[in-house]
């Protein structure tokens, strides 16, 4: 009879997912390591007394947690600009940050936050093994403080230090942090029954405005069904910040490399992860400065129609309706395509301007936008329906032109198959018919009289 271990080996298949390019190494045996970086017995005894980490990564132990602090001088360049220029611009435009937090009082000091994690799925078994924090110093240099989890037992100590770091911040700034980093950290805090103070801080998530500004093809004409497209920090770093990375570790390899460290005690492969995280933080800072600069300058500073349209969104969601309308008009004017040609930016801007005008009770202006939308060749059915419906309402209730209203209502009926639309349009047509009959009767009565 086989032993328990043998029977289990027959059952457990090697994991298909994860691993990346790096082969998983058996515990405590990594022949490729330089001997001076390996000291497993010391790891076994107490990771905190582990001098090799300091040598390999250049950090230090603080209250039981390994911290790597790094300073990027103001004069060094990151892409097109010097670090100090980014700092200075951010300083100048910081007052606009609440525009990106739906009005929450986001104010300096900003804490740029980026996690490296053991997986993307979340849940109790996914750890943030590296918590990267960054900020600008008074002299314009960019400081990063990275908290590294060297063993599971020390997580609580790490989180306590991170909490202290967050407590000093006026706002959190992240890239996709509202969906990923913050909930993940929150889970870790909850796991250890610690209070998650991140929930109280205003949180600027740069991903969403960045996507509106800079992701090509993202001006979705069917906005409600917009699919998320890839808008990675690295892409924006190249295209917007103009920086190039060399020797960067691909994100998908990061967990496997960390697990390798955990098993072998060899910290050297972590260097690339630390550097990756530091660059992510700096790029995040540069993008934030660029975004705030744009919102401060307004549509005149926009490079193209798309940026102007994105500004409109930001103003609108911050409740600045006048500025939003101006930005949408600007976007429509900047469209290079001729009137009536299919253009995603124009369609989206017109549609949003129409709604903005209606909110401002500028009904004729709104109707003008809807009419212009209907002129566009290949206008998407969803928008055609919206436009015809809005125009039917406009003609029925504002202009009291029942005939025109009926024409638009019939067009709504043609524009789609969804039962809810159909029912609504049929209902409207029936009502218009009743009104028209009544009007006819009234007229004929007048005539008889």
């Amino acid at each position, binding site marked *: 009879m086989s032993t328990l271990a043998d029977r289990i080996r027959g059952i457990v298949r090697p994991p298909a997912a994860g691993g990346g390019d790096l082969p998983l190494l*058996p515990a405590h045996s990594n022949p490729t390591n330089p001997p001076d970086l390996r000291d497993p017995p010391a790891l076994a005894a107490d990771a905190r007394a582990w001098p090799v980490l300091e040598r390999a990564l250049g950090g230090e132990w603080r209250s039981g947690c390994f911290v790597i602090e790094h300073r990027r001088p103001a004069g060094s360049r990151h892409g097109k600009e010097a670090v100090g220029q980014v700092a200075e611009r951010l300083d100048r435009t910081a007052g606009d940050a609440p525009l990106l937090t739906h009005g929450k009082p986001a104010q300096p000091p900003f804490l740029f936050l980026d996690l490296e994690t053991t*997986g993307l*799925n979340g849940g*109790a078994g996914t750890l943030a093994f590296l918590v990267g924090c960054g900020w600008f110093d008074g002299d314009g240099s960019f400081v990063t403080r990275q908290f590294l989890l060297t063993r*599971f037992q020390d997580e609580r100590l790490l989180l306590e230090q991170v909490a202290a770091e967050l407590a000093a911040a006026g706002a959190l700034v992240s890239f996709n942090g509202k969906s990923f980093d913050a909930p993940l950290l929150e889970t870790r805090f*909850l*796991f250890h029954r610690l209070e998650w103070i991140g929930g109280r801080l205003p949180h600027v998530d740069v991903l969403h405005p960045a996507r509106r500004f800079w992701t090509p093809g993202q001006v979705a004409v069917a906005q409600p069904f917009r699919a998320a497209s890839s808008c990675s920090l690295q892409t924006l770093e190249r295209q917007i910040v103009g920086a190039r990375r060399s020797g960067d570790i691909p994100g998908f390899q990061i967990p496997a490399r960390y*697990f390798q460290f955990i098993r072998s005690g060899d910290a050297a492969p972590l260097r690339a992860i630390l550097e990756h995280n530091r660059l992510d933080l700096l790029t995040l800072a540069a993008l934030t400065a660029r975004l705030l600069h744009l919102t401060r300058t307004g549509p005149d500073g926009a490079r193209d129609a798309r940026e102007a349209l994105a500004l409109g969104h930001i103003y609108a969601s911050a409740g600045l309706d006048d500025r939003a309308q101006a930005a949408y008009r600007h976007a429509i004017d900047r469209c290079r395509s001729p009137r009536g040609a299919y253009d995603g930016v124009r369609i989206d801007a017109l549609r949003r301007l129409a709604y903005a005008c209606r909110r401002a009770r500028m009904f004729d202006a709104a109707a003008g936008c809807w009419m212009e939308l209907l002129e566009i060749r290949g206008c998407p059915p969803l928008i055609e329906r919206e436009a015809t419906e809005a125009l039917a309402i406009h003609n029925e209730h504002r202009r009291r032109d029942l005939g025109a209203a009926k024409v638009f209502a019939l067009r709504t009926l043609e524009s789609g198959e969804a039962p809810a639309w159909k029912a609504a349009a049929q209902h409207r047509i029936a009502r218009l018919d009743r009104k028209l009959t009544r009007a006819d009767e009234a007229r004929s009565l007048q005539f008889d009289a």
Partner: protein
Amino acid sequence: MLPATTSRADGALDAALERLGGRELDRPDTPDLPVTAVRRLPAVTARLAPFPDALDERLKQALRARGIAELYTHQAQVIEHALAGRHTVVITPTASGKTLCYNAPVLDAILRDASSRALYLFPTKALAQDQLAELQAMCETIASPREGGEGPEIGVFTYDGDTPQDARRTIRARAHLVLSNPDMVHSGILPHHPRWAKLFENLRYVVIDELHAYRGVFGSHLCNVLRRLRRVCRHYGSNPVFLCSSATIANPRELAERLTEQTFELVDKNGAPRGEKFFVFVNPPVVNHQLGIRRSYLGEARRVASEFLKRNLQLIVFAQSRLATEILTTYLKDDFEGIPGAPERIRGYRGGYLPLRRREIEKGLRDGVVRAVVSTNALELGIDIGALDVSVMAGYPGTIAATWQRAGRAGRRSGRSAAVLVASSAPLDQFVVRNPSYFFDASPERALIDPDNLHILVDHIKCATFELPFTAGEQFGRHDVHEILGVLSEQGLVHRADEQAPWTWTNESYPADAVSLRSISSDNFVVVDITRDTRVVGETDFTSGPSTLHPKAIYIIEGTLYQVERLDFDGRKAYVREIDCDYYTTAISYTRVTPIDVFAEGAEQTDTVGAELARPPLARPSLARPAVPAHGEVHVVSRVVGFKKIKFYTNENVGSGDLDLPEQQMHTTSYWLTIPPEVIAQLPFASDDRRDGVVGLAFALKQVAQLLLMCDAHDIGISIDSGDQEVAAGTITPVKIFVYDNYPGGIGFSAPLYGVHDELLAATQKLIADCPCENGCPGCVGPIGDTGPFAKAAALRILDLLIGSEEPAF
């Protein structure tokens, strides 16, 4: 004589029963007549008890406001146990007020301390929905001052796969009572326990409803889910009390204790009143004696149902499959549906109907608008449909417990009701209908689980490590968890820094996603319908994939027939297309079982499944028992080699085909029976007929094993090993019949089956001997076309020789 009728409905029921031939009471059972048995279960009066003093006054008030002034004795007992912090399992027939048993202590705890939390587990989402309404109404009464309540707002929410993402955060924050299912706890709650910290810190009660549903694979998984749940509770410092309710099974306390690994109080004396009930067994008459073919049981069920419907009695008809449900619904609609446009009086009900439609049907039943519902087992569980007059079962539900539960769907607290079982020609049905005392006098089945099945255990150890690191001294199940974690660490899934350090999860994956509680291996075949556009219409676990999804197989979902066009074995996909045909297919597979490790062998009896049928050990003649039973670990190799086309309704064989599919292998556990060469040699038959006898015996053995084990047909497999192929012709070798657990690693059937070896043989003998067919039929040794003309005689002769106590028949 029937007792004097008390109401018009009672009179109608009497008349219908008389028409069916079931009027005569105290009659002896008549296995050969269409009505084989009639039993009268006398009315029982209520036994009441006052509210326990300790119960919160506001709760008592709310109960009184809802018309409950006193408790039944069993309710009071459960509540007292619960309030004292004792884990309790209560046996609850239908309509005995089981929900109050656990709702009262749970609400009491919340009223005393608003931070208290409770988790309810139901085997299906529909049951959770059903309970939600009742609990919410109760909580409203407590909170509403108008009805005399003055209590706090109590949040009751379901949390399952249908819960919208944006509602989940609210539920985590506000729910006092979370109504969920094991699958959701496994993949959605436990792995995210930090987000549920409030629940786990304050978890006072875990309620497990329909405990008997957790047997076999599902139960073995649930046990591990509960192990994980208790680990997480320990992490947050809580220690919940388990309250379980179960239908009548033989071992409710044992099952509860095995599932939760806690000591339980059992409350099995029911205090609820019950009206008089008649139980009638109907066997459709034989129309072809030679082939042993009976009249269609569906037609017979239609006739029975009509007798009651005609007299305006409200009834439920249980069918064994979705297809049968639709057929019977159509029959009854044809017979009884009123003018078009009038409210529908006859309704079908099964899984696959939309929730809204189901709610409408349930309401129609409670209101009396719906006069008959034809259902699958979907309505067997505790969905509230009120009390009906009659329950008609078209086909034996498979277990004694399920039969009582379905019968319990008819029966008011006062007044008469009836349950009618119409047997199909399946062997199990025939055995039960012809041996009524087996059903009426035997204890119901035991629910068996094997939570330490390594396949299941290892999966849950992965999930558990993901949830919380394993500390050095921690245990999880019967096996050495640290040895298992050691193997997982070889795979890079877990790691510990040193012997004292905890094991942590070191992989990017989310292990719960890869584990389904309803099957053993997460590997499965997906069924893709390519009739119009490509869409996934179903899935099948890996083991049964080749036999149900082989090329040209007919695959049936919700009454729609599909034919498999291509099986992509490596891609685990079957491409099917809708087809209109009048046959279905069954696979012919070749299976070879090799014993690896014998756990026990010989006459030793360790178990007592349904001991009523087994003879006392001392009365057993010792010399004349040449059959050698054994159980142990085996290696099963199986391959689907062909298939047969079987015509619907007539079950005629209308064609066949060959197949070339890859082999499947598994390690599992098995019971086997060795027939010594001397027995084979004594058979007065030619060698082909001897072989047919063994095949027929195995066929019947499987049916009886299924009956004794309370398992489904696909839970166990049979295989015959007629000895070494190399042996020269003429030499007689021992023959082994294997009844193996059809799951990798086994699921705990083999040892109990070994324990009831004697009963297994005796009941098999009875099944075959009592069957009225001449030379074998689907009701005993299998259809005559599949076996030879002497299969029945040879099988019986083998059994006589094995059991050894019978006079030789020749």
